[in-house]
């Protein structure tokens, strides 16, 4: 095994464990912390794929900004296991059944797919220079449209907040 494979395995195991931690942990704050760790391991995967720019932006945007806001809300509401309203039983059953159904569908889908012969291709598209050139030449229209979409969402949030 090369170093890359070892790194991949370590990262993959940590990301699966922390992702499970997000769902399974009782306190919302430790869920958020697990999610932050998951984001870090995913950023590690990006680096393994030679996409440093994506990795760093992933950390800045998700771990550095969005999760801070999550933490913010959770800290303000001060969610505790004692203070949480008791969930009804049928809700739990419904959740288990729908989750199980999703699992069955996913397993079936993965079981039925045939993997074409995937080849590892060395690529530099994740480096900032190449990514910038592609975003601002080939994909300039979708890029600008999505940024306008974000802008309108922000304006909408401010309008709703001012009411």
């Amino acid at each position, binding site marked *: 095994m090369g170093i890359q494979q070892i790194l991949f395995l370590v990262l993959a195991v940590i990301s699966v464990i922390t992702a499970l931690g997000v769902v399974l942990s009782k306190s919302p*704050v430790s869920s958020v912390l697990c999610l932050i760790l998951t984001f870090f391991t995913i950023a590690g995967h990006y680096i393994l794929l030679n996409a440093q720019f994506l990795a760093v932006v992933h950390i*800045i945007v998700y771990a*550095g900004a969005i999760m*801070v806001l999550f933490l913010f809300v959770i*800290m303000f509401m001060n969610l505790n296991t004692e203070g949480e309203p008791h969930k009804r039983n049928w809700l739990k059953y419904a959740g288990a059944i729908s989750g199980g159904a999703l699992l069955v569908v996913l397993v079936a889908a993965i079981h039925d797919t045939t993997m074409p012969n995937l080849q590892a291709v060395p690529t530099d598209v994740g480096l*900032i220079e190449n990514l910038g050139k592609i975003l601002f030449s080939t994909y300039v229209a979708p890029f600008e449209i999505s940024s306008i979409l974000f802008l309108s969402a922000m304006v909408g949030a401010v309008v709703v907040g001012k009411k």
Partner: protein
Amino acid sequence: MIMQIAFDYIFLIDKIVLIACVLALSLLVAMYSTWGERKVAGWIQDRYGPNRAGPLGLLQPLADGGKLFFKEEIIPANSNRFLFILGPSLAMLVACMTSAVIPWGDILEIGGRKISLQIAEVNIGVLYIFGVVSLGVYGIMLGGWASNNKFSLLAAVRGASQIISYELAMGLSLIALVMLSGSLNLKDIVEQQRHGLWNICYQPLGFLIFLVCAFAECTRTPFDLTEADSELNGGYHLEYSSMKLGFYLFAEYINMFISSALMASLYFGGYSFPGMDSLGLSTNVVTMLGFGALFIKIIAFLFLFMWVRWTIPRFRYDQLMKLGWNMLIPLALFNMLITGGLILWQQGH
């Protein structure tokens, strides 16, 4: 394979030595910044400052450190123990991580090998710093929340929103600089300034915005609302004692040191100084002189941090937010627009 491993060993040892040096240097500078701050405060307020421990009070930081180590460690009864300890550890860790991409000097030649005085020469250096800085919030937030104290929580929330708000203006002011230099690698940015004018000549407004944001990111006066004693009894580290408090205070000084180094590298030529290439000295001597030049710049910035702290009173919270969102961000956007326009105009000629 064996050859490659042998080669990697030398590389690894180089890097480990460099990392140890930079860490020791940051800790040492942070230590003596606490002494410097009290001396500067004394000088500004026309009193002596620390002068008992050692000549000129130079042993004062050691005495302070020793005192913090021997203080009783108190963990509040109703706090989250794990997060309570994680908070200051994260603050310290994040503060020490930023120094990895700063070029502390040019190249040293030892035994025919060229050693770059930069721990990690990555082509996204500026973004790396942003990533680490944006993680700095967690130290404050987790510590403040885990203390289970309403003043700490208020300070933590203040700190988080302040740091997130000022990151925007900081990023926008940096975009103008990056447009100018065409690289996110700090070493490239410094090398460009070595062969031309310093970036402060091209980006005076951008530098001013960056400076204000650096004060806010380090939560230094006039933006130290996270530890506003008169309103919050001491802020997010209210419940902390012993070395965990020391870590929080120390992390602030390391952050100050790193942001001074960053400002010196981005806007004031980093390790380059005028006439650097026409001295006719050997590479190693020039590199060491360059390191000295960088250090003088850093100390000048540290002095500025202290000078401002003992001169300007604290902002009110709404004033802080207004300054960030209503003034700095539009100014930074304007700066970006002007810079882009000028670059286009220059390319047209």
